[in-house]
């Protein structure tokens, strides 16, 4: 999903990106995460508090399915969304409980 920038306007990596609401190549920090937020879509009221509270915009609204979507590749597991959720729809689960979400990076960060 690289953006095509003309040669004469080239900038360093990370200077121009699409808004970080969707998963992007090279923007992978999921190996920082120990705890994962798990959403209960029945309890979720679509109040967007998680979308506002997340420092890295890892929550977005899927308009087709009408539910919140989690960016598992960029989420660092800071748990702010879990603490902020007024409907108690989010809960913390240890990352090792899940066998998915494995991203092995070449560099440690």
């Amino acid at each position: 999903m690289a953006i095509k920038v003309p040669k004469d306007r080239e900038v360093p990596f990370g200077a121009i990106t699409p808004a970080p609401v969707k998963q992007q190549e090279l923007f992978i920090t999921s190996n920082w995460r120990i705890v994962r937020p798990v959403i209960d879509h029945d309890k979720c009221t679509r109040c967007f508090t998680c979308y506002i509270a997340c420092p890295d915009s890892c929550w977005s609204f899927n308009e087709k399915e009408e539910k919140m979507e989690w960016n598992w590749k960029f989420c660092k597991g800071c748990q702010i969304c879990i603490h902020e959720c007024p409907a108690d729809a989010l809960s913390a689960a240890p990352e090792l409980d899940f066998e998915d979400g494995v991203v092995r990076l070449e560099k440690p960060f």
Partner: protein
Amino acid sequence: MAKVTEITVWTRGVVMDKEARDVANAFSQAAKMEGKFVQAFDNYEDLPDRVLVTTRKYARISDEEIEMKYLYTNAHPDVVVIVEPTIVKGINVLKGMPEGGLLIINTNRSIDYMLKFIPNADLLGAIATVDADGISGIKTVDFSGSEGGVDTAGIGAGIAAPLLGAMAKVTGMAKKENIAKIVTNVAAMERGFNEVKIQKFRKSRAEYFWGG
């Protein structure tokens, strides 16, 4: 040049940085008491100042003087210690390991479950787990001992102690009695020594003793 045993300790920045530093420093110090030549390094390549970012600590143990003193990263770790078990999902922890190496994980999960997250586990000579979080649970956050400073918080007060006990038993490179002289929490170290679980594979090499 004599065989140098390389030990890499994987940890997470800031919150478990001190514990991993204690593992590398105290283990090599205990080996030094037994007349071995050792080196221990804090991390300079990764980013240890960011919370939860995976970082490494290094130690080297040899029977003869170690000549590679200008390289501080271990390219071919024989022993890999993982202070926080979720790291196996984010990093290829066995990168560069020669066949028959040893992996020690701090976890209360079963060895079979942890092996699911290690795709290149056929390299391993043995895998060991110890529930250091359950035994000690304390994570000292202190930077006074990094970069050659004096460790004011004491060495091996938290989860480093059970990990060191497990390493003493499984690697056999440093004696438990010598580690007990260094660590603060000797009882946790003894529990780690006694409660470590080990699974051996056929690939273990003759030059190493992965046992207990």
